[in-house]
C-alpha cells in the first residue's frame, strides 16, 4: 500500500538526526545579530546627532573669529575655566572559574560640565561592558553544558591616551581569547573645553578625507613592508591573500595625540594578519591641512 510507503518515507525524513548544536546555534545567531545591530544603531544614533551639532559649533566659531576683530578681542577676555576632567574605573567585573577568566573594567568620565555628554558616554560604557560580562557568562554556561573542553577569556579595560587642556582621548579594548584571540578597540575623543565629542567626519570640511587618508595609509603600509619584510599588510603591493585594504570607513577608529596629531587605528585582523596586532597610522598634518575645518585639534 503506497500510503504506507509514503508514511514510511515521512517517518524516515522525520528521523533525520538533529545535531545537539542546532539549538545553541540558532539562539546564538539571533543574539549575535541583535548585539551587532544594536551596537551599530546606538553608536550611529549618538554620533549622528552630536556630529551635526559639532560641525555647526565649529563652523560658527571659526567664521566669527575670522570675520570680526571685535569678536576675537571679546573672546580673549573670557576667562577659561579649567575643569578637572578625569577618567576613573567605575566598576570591574571579574570571573575566575578554572579555564574561564574575565576581567572587565568599566571607565567613567568625571568632571564634565556638560552632564548630557558625560552621562551619555558613561551609560554607553556601562551598558556595553555589562553586556560583555553577560555574554561571557552565558557563553560560559553553554560551553559547560555542552561539555566542550575549552577555555574562554575576556579582558576589557581602558587607557587614557591623551589628556591635555584641550583634548581627552580614551581607548577601550576588548581582548577575547577563544581559540585564536582577537582584540577590538574603541575610542572616544572629547574636546574638554567645549565639552563635545569629536568624531572623525566632524574634523573635515567634506568627505574627501576618506580617500586622502586611505591613500596615505596605503603608502605607509608599503613603505613599512619595504623597510621590514616581516611587517605584512593586506594591501596591493604587499599581500593580497585576503581582501586588500581599499578605504577607511567614514567613522574609522581614531584618536588625537597630545601633539595634535591624528592617528587612525585598525583592529587585529582588520588590515593585517593576526600577529601584527592592532595597527595604527599617524597621518601627517600637512596632507590634511586643506580639508581640516580648523587647526583647533589637529596641528
Amino acid at each position, binding site marked *: 500500500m*503506497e500510503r504506507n*510507503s*509514503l508514511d*514510511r*518515507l*515521512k517517518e*524516515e*525524513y*522525520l528521523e*533525520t*538526526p*538533529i*545535531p545537539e*548544536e*542546532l*539549538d545553541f*546555534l*540558532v*539562539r546564538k*545567531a*539571533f543574539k549575535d*545579530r*541583535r548585539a551587532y*545591530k544594536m551596537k551599530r544603531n546606538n553608536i550611529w544614533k549618538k554620533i549622528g546627532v552630536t556630529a551635526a551639532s559639532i560641525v555647526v559649533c565649529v563652523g560658527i566659531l571659526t567664521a566669527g573669529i575670522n570675520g570680526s576683530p571685535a569678536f576675537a578681542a571679546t573672546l580673549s577676555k573670557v576667562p577659561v575655566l579649567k575643569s578637572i576632567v578625569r577618567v576613573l574605573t567605575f566598576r570591574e567585573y571579574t570571573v575566575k572559574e578554572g579555564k574561564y577568566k574575565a576581567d572587565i573594567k568599566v571607565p567613567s568620565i568625571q568632571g564634565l560640565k556638560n552632564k548630557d555628554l558625560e552621562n551619555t558616554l558613561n551609560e554607553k560604557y556601562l551598558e556595553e561592558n555589562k553586556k560583555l560580562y553577560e555574554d561571557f557568562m552565558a557563553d560560559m554556561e553553554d560551553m559547560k553544558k555542552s561539555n566542550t573542553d575549552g577555555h574562554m577569556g575576556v579582558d576589557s579595560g581602558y587607557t587614557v591616551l591623551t589628556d591635555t587642556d584641550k583634548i581627552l582621548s580614551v581607548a577601550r579594548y576588548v581582548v577575547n581569547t577563544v581559540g585564536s584571540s582577537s582584540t577590538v578597540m574603541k575610542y572616544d575623543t572629547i574636546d574638554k573645553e567645549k565639552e563635545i565629542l569629536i568624531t572623525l567626519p566632524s574634523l573635515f570640511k567634506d568627505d574627501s578625507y576618506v580617500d586622502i587618508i586611505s591613500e596615505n595609509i596605503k603608502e605607509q603600509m608599503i613603505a613599512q613592508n619595504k623597510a621590514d619584510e616581516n611587517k605584512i599588510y593586506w594591501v596591493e603591493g604587499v599581500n593580497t591573500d585576503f581582501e586588500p585594504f581599499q578605504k577607511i570607513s567614514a567613522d574609522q577608529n581614531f584618536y588625537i595625540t597630545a601633539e595634535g596629531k591624528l592617528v587612525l587605528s585598525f583592529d587585529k585582523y582588520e588590515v593585517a594578519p593576526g600577529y601584527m596586532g592592532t595597527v595604527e597610522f599617524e597621518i601627517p598634518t600637512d596632507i590634511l591641512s586643506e580639508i581640516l575645518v580648523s587647526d583647533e585639534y589637529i596641528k
Partner: protein
Amino acid sequence: MAPMNKDSLEELIAEHAVQYKEHYYRLAYSYVRNADDALDIVQESIYKAISSMDSLKNPNSIRTWFYRIVVNTSLDFLRKRKKTSPAEEEVLTRLDFGRTDRYEDFDLKKALDQLPEKYRTVVILRFFEDLKIEEIAEVLDVNTNTVKTRLYASFEKLRLTLNENSMEV
C-alpha cells in the same frame, strides 16, 4: 493589521526560528546530506531572515517566508559547492531508473533522494512538512499549476499513485 515595529518583528522571527528549527534543519539536510553543511545553511538563513525582515509583509505568513529563505540558501550552497548549473537537475527525464525495473528492488527512499531537487522539494514540503499547494507556490515563487505538475511527475517517478487528497490546494 498595524505594521509591527522592528523589535517585535525580530522577536517574532526569533521565536519562530527556535520553534521550527528542526523543520528547517531537515529541509536543509535534504539538499546537502551532511550535518555541518545543514547547520551552516540554517545559520545563514537566520542572518538573511534578520537582514531582510522588511520583506516579511504579513507576520502570518512567516512560515512560508522562512521556508523560502531556507530553500534559496540551500540552493546557493549547492551551486557554490557543485559549480554545476542547477538547470541540469531540472530535467526529470534524464533520470534513469531503467536497469532495475523489478518492483521488489525498487527502493523508494533512494528514488526520492535521486529526484532532482526541484521535484524532491515539492514532495518534502507537501507530504513531510504538510504545506498546502498554495503555500508551496509561495515558497518556490512559482504558480500553483507548476507545483501540481511537479507533484504529478514526482509521483510517477516514485511509482506512487495520487489520490484526491494529495492535490488539495
